[in-house]
């Protein structure tokens, strides 16, 4: 009983904090790139804040809003503390005055294990297309599906390799190197 109540009020507190910080951050140019999401009105403030954070971390201005929300749902469902952790990461990025995802590379911020883990979790959801940790050779793990064809790990090599199961080629196209390698 007690425990349940605590968890509830904790969550409410987290929501308020995250909300407050996202309002502040919304005014900061670095974390509010000119993004327009289709259905912003129906999103909670946390979702909107997460969306900004996701755009920032991935460095991608044109993330699909549906996928952002799916990542949000997976990350929050899989981890009760996620909202709090996201808020902490959010504030840290803001305080450090980072201007782009690339600023995170080698930044002292990443020495904070919890912040680093949160940022990687979010990056990973969009790049790999799932959340959680796969366990090999088992039926069950805590992974959740975010996206496949929109996973950010594919565009950097799209001219050379396929998204598995979506061939764009024909038999034996593979005898040639990718066009980028042809002299």
């Amino acid at each position, binding site marked *: 009983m007690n425990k349940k109540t605590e968890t509830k009020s904790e969550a409410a507190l987290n929501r308020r904090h995250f909300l407050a910080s996202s309002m502040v951050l919304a005014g900061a140019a670095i974390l509010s790139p000119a993004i327009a999401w289709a259905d912003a009105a129906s999103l909670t403030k946390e979702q909107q804040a997460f969306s900004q954070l996701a755009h920032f*971390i*991935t*460095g991608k201005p044109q993330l699909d809003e549906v996928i952002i929300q799916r990542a949000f749902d997976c990350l929050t469902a899989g981890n009760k503390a996620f909202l709090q952790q996201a808020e902490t990461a959010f504030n840290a990025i803001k305080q450090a005055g980072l201007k*782009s*995802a*690339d*600023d*995170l*590379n*080698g930044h002292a911020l*990443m020495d904070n294990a919890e912040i*680093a883990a949160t*940022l*990687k979790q979010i*990056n*990973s959801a969009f*790049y*790999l*297309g*799932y*959340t*959680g940790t*796969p366990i*090999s*050779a*088992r*039926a*069950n*793990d805590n*992974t*959740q*599906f*975010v996206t*496949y*064809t929109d996973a*950010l*790990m*594919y*565009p*950097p*090599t799209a001219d*050379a*390799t*396929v*998204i*598995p*199961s*979506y*061939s764009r*080629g*024909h*038999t*034996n*196209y*593979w*005898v*040639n*190197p*990718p066009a980028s*390698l042809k002299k």
Partner: protein
Amino acid sequence: MSNEFDADVIVIGSGALGSNAAYTLAKKGKSVIILEAGEKIPRWKIVENFRNSSKKENYNSPYPNEPWAHHSYDEQYIENTGSFELRPGMLKLVGGTTWHWAAAAWRYIPNDMKLKTLYGVGRDWPMEYSELEPYYLKAELALGVCGSDTEDQSGQGGEAWPPRSGKYPMEPEGETYLFQRLKDRIGSAGFNFIHEPNARATRAYDTRPACSGNNNCMPVCPIGAMYSGNVHAQHAEDEGAKLITDATAYKLEKGPNGDIVAVHYRSSKGDDVRLTAKYFIVAAHGLETPKLLLISDVANSSDQVGRNLMDHTGMGLTFLADEEVWMGRGAVQQGGIFNRRDGEFRRDYAAVKHAVSNGVPNMKVARRLIEQGVFGQQLDERLRDEASRWVEISTVFEMLPHQSNRVEASTTRKDALGIPMLKVHYDVDDYVKAAKPYASADFARFVELMGGTVIEDDTGWQNRDHLMGTVIMGDDPTDSVVNHECRTWDHKNLFLATTGVIPASGVINPTLTGVALSIRAAEIIDREI
């Protein structure tokens, strides 16, 4: 069909081996019933399951895992008691596990079948390569194998080997750029690269289109260019075989004269059915086949059922080459390095095969970089760079048969039908361990020759999903389960169509051999009915 029997032949299991046996018999006009524990599932559903899966690298995840028909990754399915966790990726649905094999379709070489005579270790086959050869050809035709008719597949750089009485049904696919580059640089140092004969169509074949490089053989070919057992399950049905799904055989019933008279199966809907036949073929794969014999208390006068379990337990190498090689174009594998497939050294340590993997590596590359804390533009750039230079070698070892490596029926775990699940004890043997330094030395050399940077070169032992030895073939009824016909010594009308009969593992993937033996067994049964 006789009035006294439900069928001439009942085949248990609709995988590649059972289905090819069933088709062979049905085509000859025999009445055949196929019992299959799982369901029939159309390819498109599996493809959609894959695309929507959160565990893309888990090859069982797009497939059903039912309480009455578990796939092998179910947490409860296998209880391991040995030092190695044996957990091959077996499936339960019409067509069986070849839905997600990689279609490597090798023949054994004659020396593989005389291991004891030539090298003093393990066991000999109770038959000659020449006796199996015509059935290899039939199996290659059935599976639509493409391969090179000119290479020395023993890896010694000699003439075309092993002997063939006919050409491969299809010409090999073109060499991937990756393979060309490795062959050029590693091959020039004396490592013999051999094309892997494989059951992927290089032109329209049977009901299948040509491979177009979807790079998804494991866990599912989206277009069915790669062979899987469902092809012959369908062919068998088209020839009149009756396929009963959701039907798990749990008991083979012995008659008074020692023959098998009936099989009992259960369904998830509560059916409990007894079916009779003149002949029975158990084709339930290398773990379920011995389990069914054990829980039925049949075919085990030798006490060898379930023993001698062998996988090609392996290890892996991942490195970055100093040039772009672009793994991931074409099918998921294409061949490998075979110098250690055969030689006098087999007296002392295991034969070794190094296979070149060719799966799109982005998931592994990206995961590693993200874990290192790489973000943004730099992440995209490094991802592209590393994906272009990523190389993976998947190595397997020849395992010997041991009494203590075994599968048994679990005494503590049952499935939803009340049928015991599996208990496995598996230790990697000294023969394999003695070969490890040689494989590791090869790894170092490959990396050096490619100007590479090691990502991982000590993976520990890995599963390779090749189940052999568990119903071992031999010429002595006191130390083997079946004879060279795959007929159980104890019951003259009970045959086993499984790679579990293979008595000497060699280093090659066993399914083509299993299919060849299954077609041969079916022809023997056909002649006797």
